[in-house]
């Protein structure tokens, strides 16, 4: 141990818009082609063009110790409490309840990039490199 504080594992949350919804759940969790339910995944070209997927792969590749989660915008039961707690924790409980609630509500914006609860930008606007840079900046700010 060198006495320095161990770097905290950053949690990056990418909020997937529901307009990205593809096939339904259940037996049709896979590809729907020509209206027919098929087992499998999306074509590689489609996967590679997906903005959330691009950002997810970039952060995973460059920051392997970061905890990267893709969360559906409708998953309020996860987004609200975890963002609220993350904001409070990051501020050392100094963030007020109202400010933390506002941050939690903002986390339900489609395309949000959240770093330990802090909103740092929009996936589509930033692009994969921009998301990576924003995550790095947010981490650096926390570690300093």
């Amino acid at each position, binding site marked *: 141990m060198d006495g320095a504080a161990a770097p905290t594992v950053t949690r990056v949350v990418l909020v997937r818009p529901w307009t990205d919804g593809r096939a339904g759940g259940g*037996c049709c969790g896979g590809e729907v082609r020509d209206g027919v339910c098929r087992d499998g995944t999306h074509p590689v070209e489609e996967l*590679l063009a997906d903005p959330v997927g691009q950002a997810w792969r*970039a952060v995973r590749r460059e920051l392997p110790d970061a905890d990267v989660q893709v969360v559906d915008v409708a998953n309020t039961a996860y987004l609200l409490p975890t963002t609220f707690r993350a904001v409070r924790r990051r501020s050392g409980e100094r963030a007020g309840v109202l400010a933390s609630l506002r941050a939690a509500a903002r986390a339900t914006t489609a395309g949000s990039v959240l770093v330990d609860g802090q909103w740092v930008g929009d996936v589509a606007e930033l692009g994969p490199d921009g998301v990576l840079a924003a995550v790095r900046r947010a981490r650096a700010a926390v570690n300093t």
Partner: protein
Amino acid sequence: MPAIVIAAVCGVLFFAGYKWYSAYLQKSVYGVDPAFVTPAHQYADGVDFVPTNKHVVFGHHFTSVAGAAPIVGPAIAVFWGWGPALVWIVVGTIFAAGVHDMGSLAVSVRHGAKNIGTIAHDVISTRARTLFLLIIFFLLTLVNAVFAVVIGNLFVANPGAVIPIVVEIPLAIFIGQYIYRTKSAALVPSLIGVVGLYLLIWVGQKVPIELTGLADAIGVEPRNVWVVLLFAYTFVAARLPVWLLLQPRDYINSHQLFIALAVIGLGMLVGWNTVVAPAVNDVPDGSPSMFPFLFITIACGAISGFHSLVSSGTTAKQIDKEQDVRHVGYLGAVGEGSLAVGAVLAATAGVAATRADWDELYPDFATASGGAVGNFVNGVGEFATNLGIPLDLAVIFAAVVVISFAATTMDTGVRLQRYIVQEIAEIAGWTRLARNLTLASIIAVVVPLAMAMLPGGGEAGYTFGVLWQLFGTTNQLTAGLALAVVAVWVTQRRRNPISVLIPLVFLLAMTAWALVVNLKNFVEADQWVLAPLDLIIFVLAIWLVVEAALALRKSWGSGAPGVGGTPSDDSGTAREPDYSDRT
């Protein structure tokens, strides 16, 4: 006995089931390996396959499986008394639904996150996939039929609910578009949508919509006019992109789920309502017997085959660590069981103040089944009055919640049925049907519409309860198929499958027994639509028994290991995503 005490006891039992039985399943039956590389890692792409925190996956999974079905079945089944209904819900959730939901998720994770139909093809036989598709076809037909009847009955009984439900459609589209186009946070607009929806309850109360005049003019029951209008709506809605209507409305409904649960729990606590129904009801002669009919009347809430479709569809692709199947699968079953407990308590403690009042609501099976959803709605309304909400508004509120869930289930059901029709057509070589979206949609709508129009007020010779039992039967058969797949897989891995085989055998025995009794009744009553339908489902059940027995016999003989991935090494290199070097 106070309803809140029963709810607390059920909660403790569910907790014990999760704490100990799911741990046993994880360690000794499914052999969960923390080092196993899940498909979410093996095929990680950030789109379909994404390793995801177990709490995130649980949120997705639970909101996908929770719906109106665990409300309807228990509200009918209290006809036999609240004791048997609760025992089946609690025992079924702990020893059948938990095993089924967790098992189908585990087996899917070990098979590249394929769906249960494809795994049935791989693990049991090539015929099993056709069997799966046929069972799902009948399941979706009956789902759509029963929920159309449920909504029709609720609209007739609660004309004040029509305006809120109808306006919810453009409201959801508007909110979805607003959030999408303005890139604003989804929470506040959707909460405003919920508030707007509840304000419309007041409008609906002032301007109730009844179709009695139209129904009288064309000589049909008002319920059937609603049923036709509902299927006309779903025909159009199923053609819309999911993001335009289905997903924003699901989002609004997810808030309603939590609001309704809070109203039920707090209402019971504040009002300290006591259960007035008998623990075991002395049912009139000629009623369906508790064995086997209780066990198919309560399907969702005790065990639901539909969960295996969700588990093996989208959920399995997101499982980060194999041990997360316990949290996501087993707790998903517990969540559904909790909804069913709430339904039992609303229909036994909320809906009536005295035993005599309750007896009037449940005098015979036909009345009990026809009025079950209404009894739940009135029960929740009564709980809400404990919180200071006027009864007439509270009842419309409860009706709006149930109709919202049922309508979403119908939307999804018709959409899925369209896919299934096309897939069956493709297997059968009917290319024109397989490629014709409109034709497939028409079949997906017309078949359940015909089923929904059949239940009458007595003259048609059978009741909504019978239709519901047929739905329960197909749901249990779907669960049976998933359990058979899980049992074969567990046996192949040289583990003891007894905890899977017991619910499998029990379910198939109850299902077959009920089908035989009903077949006899239908033939004697000259019900020549229901009798062939019952016979077809019975043949599917026998087919399933034969396929499962053959596959189990083969797997006992061979003991071949199941298909799976490779464990990661300590450095975690095996967990690198396939697409990590591509942007």
